[in-house]
């Protein structure tokens, strides 16, 4: 187990380096002048441009730029935004809101995805199985922002059940609808995954052997069908926690939540390359770490992995 953990962490290092390099290269090595990109369509004064170049090390060779960026990132020094705020401070303000939103979305998709998936998988062919399947297909097909608009329109505008938008320092109720929107696609995927896993597992030989032992249907389903089916579901969920942080942007846009996603959106609109890179790097790191945790979890859940 310890060996496996160590190997996974070592494997993570090149991935993190490669990923940050990739993002950095995308922003600063693409054709076109990043400084010009910062200012969008506006003309840039040469003196200002030179100053920015020096500030962001753009006058140095690319690989040095990257290493400096890496060094700064390791010391949590992400530089300043256009308005002169520390990037870290901006992120620090927005981050907790997004974490709250992501965790709520995670709980929502985990609970409803697994519950509906189990119902659907165990009662294959019943009418409610069909209903659950159709709804999950719809949720996957409709873009999140459309789902968001629809829910906002009905739950908020028409029926006044939940707040239409969340202000600063949103509470549980303010974030409930955004979290449902954020978790909706993943919930649908989890339903489908759980259902197909259960279908596959229920036909396994060891399930028949368990029945032959005289175990009741309830126990067989609990200990053999569900226990085994939920391994891939749990790993999917873990990986999704990281992805939810990135996906929060859409939900935050629709419901006007001052989270990390909205900050990223505004940074994109203002053309603040540094801020964009910093935020995306952070999110990618979270994603990678979540994937590492998933691998650990997988090893705990599936004894076969531990000894490989």
């Amino acid at each position, binding site marked *: 187990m310890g060996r496996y953990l160590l190997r996974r962490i070592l494997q993570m290092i090149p991935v993190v380096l490669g990923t940050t390099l990739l993002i950095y290269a995308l922003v600063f090595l693409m054709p076109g002048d990043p400084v010009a990109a910062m200012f969008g369509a506006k003309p840039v004064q040469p003196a200002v441009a030179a100053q920015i170049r020096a500030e962001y090390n753009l006058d140095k060779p690319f690989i040095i730029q990257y290493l400096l960026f890496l060094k700064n990132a390791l010391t949590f020094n992400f530089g300043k935004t256009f308005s002169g705020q520390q990037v870290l401070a901006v992120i620090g303000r927005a981050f907790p809101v997004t974490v709250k939103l992501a965790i709520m979305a995670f709980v929502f998709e985990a609970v409803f995805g697994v519950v509906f998936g189990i119902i659907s998988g165990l009662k294959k062919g019943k009418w409610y199985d069909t209903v659950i399947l159709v709804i999950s297909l719809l949720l996957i097909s409709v873009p999140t922002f459309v789902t968001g608009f629809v829910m906002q329109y009905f739950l908020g505008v028409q029926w006044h059940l939940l707040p239409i938008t969340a202000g600063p320092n949103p509470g549980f109720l303010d974030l409930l609808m955004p979290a449902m929107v954020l978790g909706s696609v993943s919930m649908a995927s989890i339903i489908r995954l759980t259902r197909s896993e259960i279908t596959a597992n229920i036909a396994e030989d*060891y399930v028949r052997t368990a029945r032959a*032992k*005289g175990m009741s249907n309830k126990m067989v389903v609990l200990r053999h069908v569900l226990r*085994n089916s939920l391994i891939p579901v749990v790993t999917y969920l873990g990986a999704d926690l990281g992805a939810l942080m990135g996906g929060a942007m859409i939900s935050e846009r629709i419901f006007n939540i001052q989270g990390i996603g909205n900050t990223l959106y505004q940074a994109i609109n203002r053309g603040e390359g540094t801020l964009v890179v910093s935020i995306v790097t952070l999110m990618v790191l979270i994603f990678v770490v979540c994937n590492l945790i998933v691998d650990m979890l997988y090893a705990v859940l599936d004894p076969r992995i531990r000894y490989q």
Partner: protein
Amino acid sequence: MTDNQSIIAAQQIKQGPILEVKDLQVDFTTDTGKAVHAVRNSSFSVYPGQWVAIVGESGSGKSTSAMAVLGLLPGTGHVVGGSIKLEGQEIAGLSQKEYDKLRGSKIGLVPQDPMSNLNPVWRIGTQVKEALDANNMDVSKEKRSKLAAALASEDSSVALKGEDDELFVASKDLPALLDAAKAALEKNGVKRVEEEMNYFRDEWVPGSETRWRVAKDLIDAGVKDDEAWAIAKKYVLGSTMEDRIAGLLSEAGLPDAATRARQFPHEFSGGMRQRALIAIGLACRPDLLIADEPTSALDVTVQKKILDHLHMLTDSLGTSVLFITHDLGLAAERAQHIVVMYKGQVVESGPSLEVLQHPQHPYTKRLVAAAPSLASQRIISAKERGENTDALLEHKVAGENELAKSEHIITVEHLTKEFKLPRKKEMFKAVDDVSFSVKRGTTLAIVGESGSGKSTVANMVLHLLTPTSGKITYEGRDTSTFKAKDILDFRRHVQPVFQNPYGSLDPMYSIFRSIEEPLRIHGIGDKKSRSKRVRELLDMVEMPVSVMGRYPNELSGGQRQRIAIARAMALEPDVIVCDEAVSALDVLVQDQVLRLLNDLQAEKGLSYLFITHDLAVVRQIADEVVVMQHGRLVEHATTDEVFDHPQKQYTRDLLDAIPGGKLQLGLD
């Protein structure tokens, strides 16, 4: 009849059959709603303490019948007619809830495939415990079948005094018990105390050995009756769940059971898993055990050990066994009563030897004639009578004696192959210094169990793997010196037929394209002549030309194997390497393919390198045998010599393990 047997027979008749299946009918429903009759009008019965075998090919309905008894028919299967009576009670129409009460405690199952029947995420011990928990088993004492109890009470040497005499030894009480036993032995002046103590240490397994057995062992060793019982009563007080689990596993022949119980299935070999499954099947002391091909996935020597053990175990518990197998020899060897099934129906049933010696239904006759284990048995018994065995060696080619003197077509010298194992420093020697040669026009068989390195040898001979050291010569030329052109030429002359009939043909290729492929690769002929050649080849393997447009998934295993042979024959090779080419086939089909191989050999003067784990098949077709174990060559001799005068213990073990080997088979 001996006394014991007459007592049993009387008991059996008195109790009546434990399982009585009458006119059973099982249907499966296809996607289109059509009913497929998997089992029709089948009847059979099992008496207490009896082994009854159902024999048949795949698709004969033998497993389906067994699963119908357990109420565990797969998919759309359901019982549509007939009755299934367990101890006189109708169980065919029971609900799953009612079945739950029977399964485990009344009917146990030992399933076929040890790899897929244990849940990979639970510890072995936990999976045994589930069986005990599900049936609320009292783990502190033995539960005995009526028959075993009746017999035990008639066993005069030790009288059972009460319920408590069935209590198990607990691991925590064992040291004290052994000390007391030693003291008692010394006190009673028993000689060879250590020997007796060693016997006790082996026998007194916590969670498995009962009080009355301990008392009996002590009495047998020379301790006075009342003293023995006093010790047994004082120290044998019933076991814990952990002890019982370990006890059950150790009864099934799993060494070091207490440690093993904490391991996961993937840490077990196939044989160990099968033992765990036997422990699970017998955990709640069912009156009837259904053993569905319990050893067909295992090596022959392991198979024999496990079946011997299972036999011993069910005998002492008085458990009846419904034994499902495709191997007639195995069935006859293990069961008193045989039921032969064909296409969903019972075609013949009766006492094993009677059925075997005087088969009456044409299908049974065919089966008896084809079973390799029985065939080699016939040769042996014929030899013992000093009869001429040539007529029995139907698969042997006449006139081989002249050929035997001719040159060696393939010679293997000091062949060694090492593999690097992950995370291990030392290299693993898959093949270790093996030498032999194949004489032109003859068959050399390499026999060994899994891990013996026999397939690695085949792949090196086929030039698909490079040897670590050693030399392979074909027609006197060292194959390691071959250039690309030589290799292509070599491939024309040395062709393979592989084991898995489902894997060796590309599912995307039509039969025509599959057989044509070698001709294309070697650029032989034009489109028209190739098409003509494919027809010839199909004819050669006795397949209708109409299969050309079909795809592998439409053919049976045996048919695919014949296509693979046709493909191998396309280039008119001199040597065919058959790597377990018939192992996956049903006996009748196997017989047919072997016959085809022999006809081709006679006709074309082919040489075969025949890789197999099945000595019974070897007897029928090989001229020479190489026995391999753990990568090393154990024995190399002519087939007759190996069978009649095996030199090495391992060869003798292999021979002993041929199912049906112990049968006293009269010639029909």
